[in-house]
């Protein structure tokens, strides 16, 4: 089976220092048997969707190094409760699990906090947080607001869930524009549902 490991969003900028080109998120193909580790998160992107067009395969996989599959999936369910977006596939929330797993791999304290947090979620849900109703999940997460566990997961969501190509595509943000010549000929003033301001307020664009 062909799968797509979802690379974490690069935090360093050294790779773009010279050229100014921001590397696109790397989605190399990998064979199932190469995915090892403490847990594997997998899923599929809806065929024919905008997001599937970004990927070489509709099947995605994320390899965890410290957390278990169940812990990863529970964190994904928590993230979907914190920032619920119907238009985002599980693959986006899996980036959150992968980034939290990387933090856990780097710190035993973080790993313990995440594991304890997940087991707390499950016990409050009467055994399985993932299977709880949306209302129940929301009530449980609301009860955790202010805890270090909640803060760590929500804080990581801000970059993991939103700062990636799939989220950009889902929400309609095209990202980098300079290599396309900006918007001067690509709709920076194409809004038609309001009248155009007079030239005194908004002169014509200089086009050479």
């Amino acid at each position, binding site marked *: 089976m062909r799968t797509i490991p979802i690379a974490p969003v690069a935090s360093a900028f050294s790779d773009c220092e010279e*050229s100014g080109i921001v590397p696109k998120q790397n989605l190399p193909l990998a064979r199932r048997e190469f995915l090892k580790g403490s847990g594997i998160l997998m899923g599929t992107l809806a065929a024919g969707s905008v997001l599937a067009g970004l990927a070489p395969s509709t099947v995605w996989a994320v390899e965890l190094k410290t957390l278990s599959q169940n812990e990863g999936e529970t964190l994904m369910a928590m993230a979907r409760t914190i*920032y*619920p977006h119907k238009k985002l596939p599980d693959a986006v929330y899996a980036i959150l699990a992968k980034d939290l797993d990387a933090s856990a791999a780097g710190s035993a304290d973080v790993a313990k906090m995440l594991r304890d947090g997940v087991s707390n979620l499950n016990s409050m849900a009467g055994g399985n947080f993932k299977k709880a109703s949306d209302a129940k999940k929301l009530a449980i997460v609301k009860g955790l607001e202010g805890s270090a566990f909640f803060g760590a997961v929500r804080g990581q969501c801000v970059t993991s869930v939103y700062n990636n190509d799939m*989220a950009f595509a889902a929400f309609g943000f095209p990202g*980098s524009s300079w290599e396309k010549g*900006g918007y*001067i000929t690509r709709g920076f*003033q194409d809004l038609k549902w309001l009248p155009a*301001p007079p030239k005194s307020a908004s002169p014509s664009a*200089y086009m050479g």
Partner: protein
Amino acid sequence: MASIAFNDDSAVVIIGSGAGGGTLANELCQKGIKVVVLEAGARQSPQSFVNDEWKSFGQLAWLDPRTTSGTWRVAKDFSGLPAWICKTVGGSTTHWAGASLRFQEHEFRAKTVYGDIPGANLLDWPITLSELEPYYAKAENKMGVTRTNGIPGLPGNNNFKVLYAGAKKLGYKGVHTGNMAINSQPRDGRGRCMQLGFCFQGCKSGAKWSTLYTEIPKAEATGNLDLRPESHVTRIEHNEKGLVSGVVYFDKDGKEQRQKARVVCVAGNSIETPRLLLLSASNMFADGLANSSGQVGRNYMRHMTGSVYAAFKDPVHMYRGTTMAGIISDESVHNPKRGFVGGYEMETLSLGLAFMPAFLDPGAWGAEYAWWMDHYTNLAGMWLVGEDMPRETNRVTLNTNVKDKWGNPVPNVHFDDHENDIVMRNHAFTQGERIYQAAGAIKTYRTPPYPSTHNLGTCRISANARDGVANKWGQTHDIPNLFISDGSQFTTGGAENPTLTIVSLAIRQADYIARQMTERAI
């Protein structure tokens, strides 16, 4: 480019290369004066800038440790990041939006015009608008500000269309695409704005004025500038006569260096500038350099700010085009009938999808919050920026409990909103929401202040040495060859974005320093 010896004590040493330091350096070099610029950050270029919000933040922002205290919300949401300013050659002129507005006449006389405001440490500037006007004119010409010097305004983007339509329905009159230091047509060897939509990430087209690719290369071409990037100054030294004699810094290899100087000009922005004066305390100056007034680090201002975002039924795509080319100036007047002194500007603003979830309402979550992100393409946004009250207790101090990588105490930024700031912000929020409702908004959102981009006032200029740190030329009252050359000089904040005034003051200060050097006064 010049190479000035460490023990050469004939040069002017400028700390910082942004709007103040970069401009001052060029002005002095053009007059034939040798200048060393010590810049803490590395040198980037339009080629190396990235259209990626978080990556650019890592590339340009000042991320050395800082702490916060006080009741301002930034202390809770961004406790280690009081300010969103830059550590790079060009300083925050790489990041700024380009809005270039002159202060109004009454804003130089805040104490006289506003009267005694309890809890505020107001003071009139030691200079007037008419004294600064010739320098405003020079700065506008240098920076290529639209709607001055025959330069046309920028074309308005979709976000401006929404702002304009709503503002006009409310009866506002002063609404246009702003006075922007962004080329609407090619000028001064730089191209026109490509409407990239990433003004805050460093302008990749070079259309936006930044000292990085205007003042600094022009200064280098004179052969009088020795620019040293990645040079972090930790101390200003003085001699037994109480005059500054040089600075100590760590170079790009982490080696400690000492550069002698005839004159030292501090332009590290309003957090690092007072910090450096405080770090340079000695037996002779036990409370820090130039601090006989006790005002170093005090009166920290950050402008009354806030944002309003609005969702519409139809797409706006606010991220397309020049970020801040849109202004409503009607509320910038002083009209105490509104319940506050001073005024505010309303300016178009947008954030990309990466920054939006971090800044729309820090800490917020849940379905309603997600709704706003779901409607990203249908959002319009504006920034509210107005005069805040200087307070002695709003101040930059040394936090001896936290050390930076050179072992020095980090700056702590303490800020409490003055009641006037709060009343003004609520007024501005209400008017902002009314504008968007008039344009057909289905929902509006009041976004709290971001980490400070306008940091001002911590070494203010004053007529009387008792009231401030420096005189009307930015020359410190206590040490004649030590100058304050950035927004720290501001006696009060005004309603306007501060860069044009910082540049104007720097041009004026260069004339003064050159005269003083010729007269052998310094």
